[in-house]
């Protein structure tokens, strides 16, 4: 009973906060609702016994990705009155798009079958859940069977990172930069001159 109650709590709050992301007029509130939705998704993962994934969702999505979202959205200079303008102009187009998406999802669900192997795997996971922990089971799969895919996804992320740095990094000659090595190599003799001053004598 407790299990079902917690499930409904997480599911309800998750769906509601996802709706609030869209309905909110203030984008910062939107991101905060999105974080709540992520959090509830993590809760659902815990209920399913996928504790490792749950923690990763919180660490990666809530702890890092959403912080960057919030970072960017907070800096936006938004005119809240301007947001209402042109609502009627865009409404038909938006509504049409929503209807098309909804119809596609419905069609997809009508024709949805799961592969037999996948169902068999779901019924009896290969390393029995009661014998190994989440972390071990995932590690055994990722680093043996899927090691090449894992490495390739790492490379993809590296390429994305290098690309982002190349796109945004500019060196302009007018900017004076700090040279750490010079600063560290500066000695006391170069900058300080200790004089013994005679009383009432001055330098």
């Amino acid at each position, binding site marked *: *009973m*407790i299990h079902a109650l917690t499930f409904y709590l997480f599911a309800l709050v998750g769906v509601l906060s996802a709706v609030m992301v869209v309905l909110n007029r*203030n984008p*910062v*509130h939107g991101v*905060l609702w999105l*974080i709540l939705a992520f959090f509830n998704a993590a809760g659902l993962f815990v209920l399913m016994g996928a*504790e*490792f994934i749950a*923690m*990763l969702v*919180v*660490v990666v999505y*809530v*702890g*890092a990705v959403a*912080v*960057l979202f*919030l*970072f960017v959205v*907070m800096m936006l200079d938004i005119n809240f009155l301007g947001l209402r303008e042109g609502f009627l102009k865009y409404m038909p187009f938006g509504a049409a798009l929503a209807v098309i998406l909804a119809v596609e999802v419905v069609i997809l669900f009508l024709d949805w079958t799961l592969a037999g192997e996948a169902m068999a795997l779901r019924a009896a996971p290969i390393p029995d859940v009661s014998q190994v*922990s*989440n*972390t071990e089971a995932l590690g055994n799969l990722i680093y043996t069977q899927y090691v090449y895919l894992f490495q390739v996804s790492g490379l993809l992320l590296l390429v994305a990172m290098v690309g982002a740095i190349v796109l945004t990094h500019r060196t302009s000659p007018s900017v004076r930069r*700090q040279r*750490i090595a010079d600063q560290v190599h500066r000695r006391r003799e170069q900058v300080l001159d200790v004089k013994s001053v005679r009383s009432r004598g001055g330098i």
Partner: protein
Amino acid sequence: MADLWNDVLWPLIIIIAQILLIVLPLLLAVAYLTYAERKVIGAMQLRKGPNVVGPFGLLQPIADGAKLFLKETIIPTGADRPVFILAPMLTFILALIGWAVIPFDEGWVLSDINVGVLYLLAISGLGVYGIIMAGWASNSKYAFLGGLRSAAQMVSYEISMGLIIISVLLTAGTLNLSEIVQAQANGVWYALPHFPMFVLFVVSILAETNRAPFDLPEAEAELVGGYNVEYSAMTFALFFLGEYANMILMSAIAVVLFLGGWLPPLDMAPFTWVPGIIWFALKVCAILFVFLWARATFPRYRYDQLMRLGWKVFLPLSLAWVVLTAGVLVAFDALPQ
């Protein structure tokens, strides 16, 4: 009815009692940490520190708490009310829920989960929201700058903290905090083989909790008071309590990961007579003293130096140490099974 009592209500009462057993001493510890901080810094600066309220000034934290409680809570007109109120509550709650997985002694842990280390990383990663929300909701430029700084700072240092923890996990072979301590019982405390990482971890937790010399979010000389400049009374007190509870939590994590948790320093007669929780508390106090010592000793880092230290020094060092640890463990066939 009996079912409901046995299956639901009685466990609920037990859990709430356990939570109170953790939270009440914790709040007392937080109060006396502020007192200890003022006394220690006073001693280091040849001052007396608080010595007027009660014997040796021992009632000072209670007087401070009462003062904050009686002040008026001011919410600025331009502030975003719900977020403004939510931010200090979030900071305080996050500082408390981390304690759910900390093992105080053998078997003395509220929730002995398999992914304890990840849970702690997740909780400390969430800590940034309290500060960034406070900075934004205050609708003040100083508070906003403080919030942005701290977001960048905490995200940066979390990465190197994660890598440092990975080398400990490689040696222990588990993510469960009690088992990490048990693994140190069989060998040595991880502060010895991982000594450079221990130092890096202590510096990182200084940055993660926004303490001196990395207290840029509240740099009073440039930002007036940083993210909490618009807060008063209990809303401010919650930030304050949250910051100190976080310091104790981070010290406890360092103790569990590197200093052998509740284990006595030597496994022989006079040391084993002392109960484990006393050893745990003593070790936490030792790390907390380093926090206070650093605050009394070092000037504040400049923002770009802070970022440089995090990304260009700590990150490569901890990454290299992970590779080294893994290499040594594989080469000597010492990987935990």
